[in-house]
């Protein structure tokens, strides 16, 4: 008589089925409107472009992928490096790295400062970081524009102080994008840093001073190694959206300073080269995956060393 055991098996099977049914709506929506289209895009990157956008459906071509890095000479059809694309790729990567470094330089002391406030005021400081975090990205970018444009705060101040005579052109330069991205993504650095510094056991710091470390040595040899997971998390949280930035370079770079996101948009707009746009998109995704893999490797390693 194994009725009870059968019941147990049936209950487990029912639980499995219910769990699939429950997750089905979410999985289907995400498949239809997020993951599925990526595969369609992958297919599109291997098709021939049509003259007015879109592709010649089902016609295989590697032209999209080739044009990511190379361009055909108009006259003799030979391949040369696509300098414009390469410089945009380089700008995307370097500006993202600079942004990460800048947010870390400002974010770490800020997070440390918040974490060392008394518990009563700490929440207020965290809240002050949270508000910009949840404010529309476009609005924050626009706010940055108010500061750096030719008639903006910085230039008005510098001119009225007599330091410069004509406005300092920041808008539509790489510097504008860098300032914008640093400003917009700073909360993404501060919040994870704060989370890990807050968990720091300050008795370890006491032990550090007890063993003759200076403030700098305590910071470098004790604090930073212990909050490394937070540093890595914050860096990845800043680096990844920077790499895929679209709104910030569009508003602050003004079409002169383009990043990968703008290059992609261009192919689907005026460029009318969907296969190329698709290929660049996948390249961008690949770069993001590399960054994520770096993150996963780092986290698993530091996770292992901290038990």
């Amino acid at each position, binding site marked *: 008589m194994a009725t009870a055991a059968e019941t147990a098996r049936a209950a487990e099977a029912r639980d499995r089925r219910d769990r699939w049914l429950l997750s089905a709506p979410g999985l289907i929506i995400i498949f239809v409107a997020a993951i599925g289209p990526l595969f369609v895009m992958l297919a599109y990157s291997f098709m021939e472009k049509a003259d007015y956008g879109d592709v010649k459906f089902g016609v295989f071509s590697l032209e999209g992928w080739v044009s990511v890095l190379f361009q055909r000479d108009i006259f003799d059809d030979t391949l040369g490096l696509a300098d414009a694309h390469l410089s945009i790729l380089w700008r995307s990567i370097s500006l993202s790295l600079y942004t990460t470094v800048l947010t870390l330089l400002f974010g770490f002391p800020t997070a440390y400062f918040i974490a060392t406030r008394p518990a009563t005021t700490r929440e207020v400081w965290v809240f002050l970081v949270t508000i910009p975090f949840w404010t529309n990205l*476009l609005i924050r970018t626009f706010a940055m524009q108010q500061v750096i444009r030719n008639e903006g705060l910085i230039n008005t101040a510098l001119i009225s102080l007599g330091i410069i005579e004509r406005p300092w052109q920041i808008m539509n330069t790489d510097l504008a994008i860098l300032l914008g991205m640093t400003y917009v993504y700073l909360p993404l650095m501060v919040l994870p840093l704060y989370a890990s510094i807050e968990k720091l056991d300050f008795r370890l710091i006491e032990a550090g001073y007890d063993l003759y470390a200076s403030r700098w040595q305590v910071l470098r040899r004790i604090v930073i190694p212990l909050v490394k997971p937070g540093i890595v998390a914050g860096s990845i949280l800043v680096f990844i959206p920077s790499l*895929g930035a*679209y709104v910030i370079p569009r508003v602050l770079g003004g079409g002169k300073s383009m990043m990968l996101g703008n290059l992609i948009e261009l192919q689907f707009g005026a460029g009318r080269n969907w296969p190329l746009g698709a290929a660049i998109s996948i390249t961008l995704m690949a770069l993001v995956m590399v960054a994520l893999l770096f993150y996963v490797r780092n986290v698993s390693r530091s996770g292992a060393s901290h038990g």
Partner: protein
Amino acid sequence: MARRQRAYDIRRQPGFGLIALFTFFALYLPIAALVAYSFNAADSLSRWDGLSLRWFISAWNNQAVQDASIRSLLLATWAATLATIAATMAALATTRTPNYPGLTFKYAFINQPLMVPEIVTGVALLIVFSRIKVWTGYTGMGYLILAHTAFCIPFAYLPIRARLESMDLTLERAAADLYATPWRAFWRVTLPLLRPAIIAGFMLAFVISLDDVVITEFVKSGGQDTLPTYMLGQLRRETSPEINAIATVFLALSVVLVTVFYFVNRRRP
């Protein structure tokens, strides 16, 4: 020998306080400038002509702004509602269980929208939806609602899953022990205890949908501007302080939502 009056502060790091204060200053200065200019009476952003509400009135009377605002709110309500329902169900399906085949797959799937740059999702949706639009002839709000729901799900999922994981199954077991069917146990015990997290998830999803500009830009059909895409379009041109006024109102809305969210989340049942 002078005696130290205060203990050696082990937490202090020289200069950190100054950098932090500068950071906070830098975080709020642009926002303050934006808000200040929205109250500017002058016609252009180049001059300051004193305080005025004229740009708020002008924006309020602008039909395009009205349409975009209503569209944004409707879209965010739909997307957040659908995403919260789907996320709640998914959270129930993926927590409080020993690992089962497919669980990791589900996690990866649900969090996928967080991993892919918006611009990539945006153009991928453009490719797919533009073809569907041609095939079906349907160009309504459905596409936007679907796309927004998809990227809102991971945000709504976050707090709901966290709450469920901190809730063990004992209370549901107690309900079952007291003759509640699984369905009644869910409605009488699980759902009421989950309510704060569901509200938090909904609000997160709502804010995320309201803020989106990139995906909307690529998915929308003609005449389907939301407030952010309308503003993005305006920024291309010579901007008038009307944009500042809209941004200021938008900002105020975000602050209110975040504050409410903060207090909903902080209050423990």
